[in-house]
């Protein structure tokens, strides 16, 4: 290894959450996002010598991450494990996500979750804290997959509206 962790780590940790969040917005399940981020982290570490100090680390890191994401998608498509997005659509989604504002933060989401009822928070917790599929949630609470998806969709609409209102206040 040629890079200095004391130089690399502060840059990397500042953007690590954003890099991971980007992968989630691009259609990867959390475990797949973990894997791609890990592969990208290796590449960032190994290629750190090509980074010019003082330039935009975020842009440099995203360029490498996007390449790794593309390669991951290609592997899945070849294995028949996913539906291919056409390249222009994938590129459009990636560029829009990188250019967008930061993802909603914990504090904002916690505030909005506080306005929901206990049952709604439990449903969201099963989905996001426990990472259960909607089918697994349905089995857990004695409902149907469709009903769970519909309920989650409505809850996310409520949360999105709440987050927009919060953003307007700041």
């Amino acid at each position, binding site marked *: 290894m040629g890079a200095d962790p004391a130089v690399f780590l502060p840059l990397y940790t500042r953007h690590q959450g954003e890099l991971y969040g980007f992968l989630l917005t691009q259609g990867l399940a959390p*475990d797949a996002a973990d894997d791609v981020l890990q592969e990208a982290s290796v590449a960032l570490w190994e290629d750190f010598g090509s980074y010019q100090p003082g330039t935009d680390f975020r842009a440099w890191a995203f360029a490498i991450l996007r390449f790794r994401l593309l390669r991951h998608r290609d592997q899945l498509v070849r294995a028949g494990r996913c539906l291919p997005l056409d390249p222009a659509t994938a590129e*459009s989604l990636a560029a829009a996500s990188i250019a967008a504002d930061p993802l909603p933060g914990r504090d904002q989401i916690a505030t909005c979750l506080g306005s929901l009822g206990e049952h709604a928070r439990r449903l969201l917790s099963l*989905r996001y*804290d426990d990472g259960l599929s909607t089918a697994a949630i349905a089995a857990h609470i004695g409902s149907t997959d469709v009903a769970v998806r519909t*309920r989650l969709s409505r809850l996310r609409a409520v949360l999105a509206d709440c987050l927009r209102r919060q953003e307007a206040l700041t």
Partner: protein
Amino acid sequence: MTLYPAIDAWFGGHPDDADRATQAQVLADLLAADPAARVAYLAQARLHAGMHLAAPTLRAAPRMLRFPLGTGVAVAAAAALALTTAAWWSTEASAPAPTRSITVAISGAADPGAVAIQSSRDVATSVDDGAVRVAGIDPRAATAIRWTALIQR
């Protein structure tokens, strides 16, 4: 499955579409055809991602940590992990303090294949075919373990 966030985010209101592969294909076609759909989808995907990042408690599902179990992984990993974990949490200044203090050490220098991960919490670990499986560990600690492995290898 790709387009993961879309499955229940975008199609939650379409009870007639029971087949997820069909749903994802419909969504892929829609995203390719309609810029407005891409904007709407991305808004949902961002909320979905934010929810995952904000998840405050442990995940129930076992997490697979894949890294080579070379000798470098086993040596001095604990110190690097502490540094990395501190750095990681320091970037989360607005987040609540971690509710669980997790101390992880990676040992096994005598036998690179016999890596043990110890934690202040009870976690289930196993080593099989060059991979370490850790169940019930904070996602941020899991990230730190991954990173530590990268530094040390």
